[in-house]
C-alpha cells in the first residue's frame, strides 16, 4: 500500500485478555519499528526489525510483550494478560533501510484501551 497500515485502529479489551496488533509496512521497506505513545506523552521505542537480522527488543516493557515479523513484511505485536497501564497508542513505523539517515513513516496507530 501507499502508507503504513495498522489494524485494528481501535481496540477495547478487558484486563487480563491478550491482544494482537498488526502492522503492514510500506512495500519494500526493510526496517520496521513499534513505538508506544501514552496519552500526552512522547514516543517510547519498543522493538525494531531489520531484514533477517535479530530484532532489537530492548524497549519491550515486560515479558508480556512480544512481536514478530513474518516474511520480512507484516509484523504483529502481542500483549498478553493486558493491564490498564498498557492503554496507549501503539504506532508502527517503517523505513526504507536501517540507516538513521532515512525518514521513518508512521502508521495511524492502534489505540488500545484496557478496561
Amino acid at each position, binding site marked *: 500500500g501507499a502508507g503504513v497500515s495498522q489494524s485494528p485502529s481501535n481496540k477495547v479489551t478487558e484486563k487480563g485478555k491478550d491482544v494482537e496488533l498488526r502492522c503492514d509496512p510500506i512495500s519494500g521497506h526493510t526496517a520496521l519499528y513499534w513505538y508506544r505513545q501514552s496519552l500526552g506523552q*512522547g514516543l517510547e521505542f519498543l522493538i*525494531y526489525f531489520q531484514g533477517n537480522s535479530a530484532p532489537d527488543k530492548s524497549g519491550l516493557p515486560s515479558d508480556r510483550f512480544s512481536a514478530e515479523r513474518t516474511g520480512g513484511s507484516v509484523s504483529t505485536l502481542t500483549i498478553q494478560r493486558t493491564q490498564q497501564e498498557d492503554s496507549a497508542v501503539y504506532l508502527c513505523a517503517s*523505513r526504507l533501510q536501517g540507516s*538513521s*539517515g532515512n525518514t521513518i513513516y508512521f502508521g495511524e*496507530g492502534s489505540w488500545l484501551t484496557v478496561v
Partner: protein
Amino acid sequence: GQQVMQIPQYQHVQEGEDFTTYCNSSTTLSNIQWYKQRPGGHPVFLIQLVKSGEVKKQKRLTFQFGEAKKNSSLHITATQTTDVGTYFCAGPRNDYKLSFGAGTTVTVRA
C-alpha cells in the same frame, strides 16, 4: 545513554505571533529530524538536518541545527491555527534507533 530534551513542553501562542521551540541532545548527533503530530493523528516527518549550522525553511517554519550538532530549533512565524499539534525532534541513538524528545505541544488562540 543519549537523551533528547525539548523545551517548552507546552506553547500557547496568539495567532499571528512567532515562537521558537528547542531541542537539546546530551551527545553529538549525526542528524536531527523533526516530526509533527496533529491532535488525534500520527507523527509525520517534516525535515532532516545533517550539517553543522544548517538552516532550512519550509514556508513559515525555520529549522536550525546547532554548530556543535547537539541542539536544534524550530521557529514558526505568524502562527496559524493549522500549526496546532505536537512537534517532536528526534536524533539517532545508533545506526537505526531514533530517540524522540517528549515534544512541544502547540495551541493557538485566535
